[in-house]
């Protein structure tokens, strides 16, 4: 896919010699007694599309506003391209921001809105005109230059806001919930366009979003935030497949959590004794833990097989009763109950069209998974 060709396949964060473009060092922001951002450190590299993902009030927007200069950190340091940003007001930063509300100037035409930043820099009029025209065609708004914001649709306004924030060729572009106000279909289209534009211009993007699907689709890496802290940073793949906490596992995608204790701890596998399943769960990766420690096994619904009888080669097999089946078209979601009373969510791709022998609610089935399918989280 895009990975092979795009800049983000380079994975600069794995290169120990790479110099981060944006460095956030132990940044804390307090509003009175409330700590909005708590000791966050984060490196973002040139050309990345980094998503800050979290629920409302997790501090992601405050962090973004500190990057833009609308808020100053209570303690800690922010460096952009090696330059310390402490005390630098927003209008003196080479960064731009796309606001959640778009914040288009209602009294100016589309053209004037987009040209605003260049005009402030005293760019010659002829150059402004060419660059605005370029921008308009980049965001596919040719012909709408003379419209006022209130004469545009939501999607068009979003494009004007994007064009306005890109026209100064910022080193760093911050986007606050850039697609939040668009409907689902338009959002998916715009996501792809946003990635394309980002790759064309090579600008570093920092996107704030609460939508995990959006973060997965857009980002080269993402940081999951909660309660003012970043709990996990990684590629969408890493964060989804190897969540480091129950919170991350639960926040991104859906997950089944089995509580238990470490019963056997070897280098290449662990066995977790779980009361939820009334059995031992084999996990074929080593962990850093001690025998008897309380942990949880996180298991994604799509990694669980469900059949009337499963082959004995599967190391983890459990009997279960189907409570209900939701047919979603591309997949079916089964809610099953184990003999212990624990509910488990299983999803299966509908590979075949025929549904004559499909598993129905009330049936006794077996669910099972491979040792590599689950991940142990200690926190």
């Amino acid at each position, binding site marked *: 896919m895009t990975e092979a060709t795009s800049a983000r396949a380079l994975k600069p964060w794995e290169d120990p010699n790479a110099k981060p473009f944006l460095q956030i060092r132990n940044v804390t922001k307090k509003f009175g007694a409330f700590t909005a951002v708590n000791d966050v450190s984060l490196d973002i590299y040139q050309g990345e599309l980094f998503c800050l993902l979290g629920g409302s009030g997790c501090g992601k927007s405050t962090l973004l506003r500190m990057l833009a200069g609308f808020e100053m950190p209570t303690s800690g340091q922010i460096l952009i391209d090696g330059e310390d940003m402490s005390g630098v007001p927003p*209008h003196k930063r080479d960064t731009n921001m796309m606001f959640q509300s778009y*914040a288009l100037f209602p009294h100016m035409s589309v053209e004037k809105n987009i040209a605003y930043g260049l005009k402030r820099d005293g760019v010659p009029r002829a150059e402004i005109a060419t660059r605005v025209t370029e921008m308009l065609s980049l965001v596919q708004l040719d012909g709408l230059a003379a419209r006022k914001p209130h004469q545009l649709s939501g999607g068009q306004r979003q494009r004007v806001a994007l064009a306005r924030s890109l026209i*100064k060729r910022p080193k760093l572009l911050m986007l606050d919930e850039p697609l939040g106000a668009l409907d689902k279909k338009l959002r998916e289209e715009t996501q792809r366009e946003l990635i394309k534009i980002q790759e064309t211009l090579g600008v570093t993007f920092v996107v704030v979003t609460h939508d995990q699907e959006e973060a997965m689709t857009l980002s080269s890496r993402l940081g999951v935030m909660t309660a003012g802290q970043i709990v996990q940073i990684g590629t969408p793949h890493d964060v989804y497949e190897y969540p480091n906490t129950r919170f991350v596992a639960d926040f991104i995608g859906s997950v089944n959590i089995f509580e238990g204790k470490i019963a056997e701890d070897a280098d290449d596998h662990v066995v977790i004794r779980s009361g939820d399943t009334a059995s031992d769960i084999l996990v074929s990766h080593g962990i850093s833990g001690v025998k008897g420690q309380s942990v949880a096994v996180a298991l994604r619904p799509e990694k669980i097989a469900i059949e009337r009888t499963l082959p004995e080669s599967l190391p983890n097999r459990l009997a279960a009763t189907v409570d209900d089946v939701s047919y979603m078209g591309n997949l079916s979601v089964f809610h099953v109950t184990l003999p212990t009373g624990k509910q488990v969510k299983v999803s299966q791709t509908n590979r075949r069209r025929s549904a004559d022998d499909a598993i129905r609610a009330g049936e006794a089935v077996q669910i099972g998974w491979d040792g590599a399918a689950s991940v142990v989280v200690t926190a």
Partner: protein
Amino acid sequence: MGRRGKRRGDGMTARGLFEWVGAKGRAFVVAAPLAWLTLFFLLPFVVLAKISLSESAIARPPYLPIWEWAEGVLNVSLNFGNYLFLAEDPLYLMAYLGSLKIAAAATVITLLIGYPMAYVIARAPQHRRNILLMLVVLPFWTSFLLRVYAWIGILKGNGVINNVLMSMGVINEPLVLLQTDFAVYLGIVYSYLPFMILPLYATLVKLDEALLEASADLGARPFVTFLTVTLPLSVPGIIAGSLLVFIPAVGEFVIPALLGGPDTLMIGSVLWNEFFSNRDWPVASAVAIVMLVVLVMPIAILQRTQSGKEEAN
């Protein structure tokens, strides 16, 4: 046709009545202010217009009727002499111009003082905002007349200002502050400041902070942001506030009468003199009608532009 009639017939149930009131409700709501305006504005205006077209007389009332019914003949005599008289005597023209000049200058000063105040109130934290607004409105709790009188005590020869300055040794002789144009400006600006601040505040408080941040983010210094974003977006408040100050200031009588000197020529005083000193009601009425026309014109133009803008939105 027949069916409709029948429907109307059984519509006279409680529900039908309710619907009828519902449909006519709009008319009722509009009728109340319309009746008010007719009774207290339109009728007096017509009476005034009628008097302005009559001839003055030593009688009670002090003017002649404009129509007479005698022996089957209706004699209507419209006297435009009062209006011609206004045009002939430069006193009236000077008074009109003087009023407009003083009102316009006072409006600009009020705007210059009121805008920063409204801006600060609109940007203040929520809980402090209400206190500041209270302070703006607080003077209204005292009679307007008393407050203007209070200024006499402050400005007069042995008033507060002169006493303080003399005791500090800044001046040796009292300054002439009272009965000057300065005192009139001061009185108007002081009295009408809240009328400027309140509409300005209403516009500024609605201003989306994100617009200011967006402007800063795109490289505008705070002052440039003010000129390119805040000021253009507060134009409706500026217009509303300016009208609320300008219109009553043109016809202002009390302030120039109490604080102004003999040189302060304002149409309000002229009007008062014509009515009560000269007892020339027809000329006084003509003065009032002309003033109304002078004031209504700009409002009408403004209304047009405003409604045009709303249609565009």
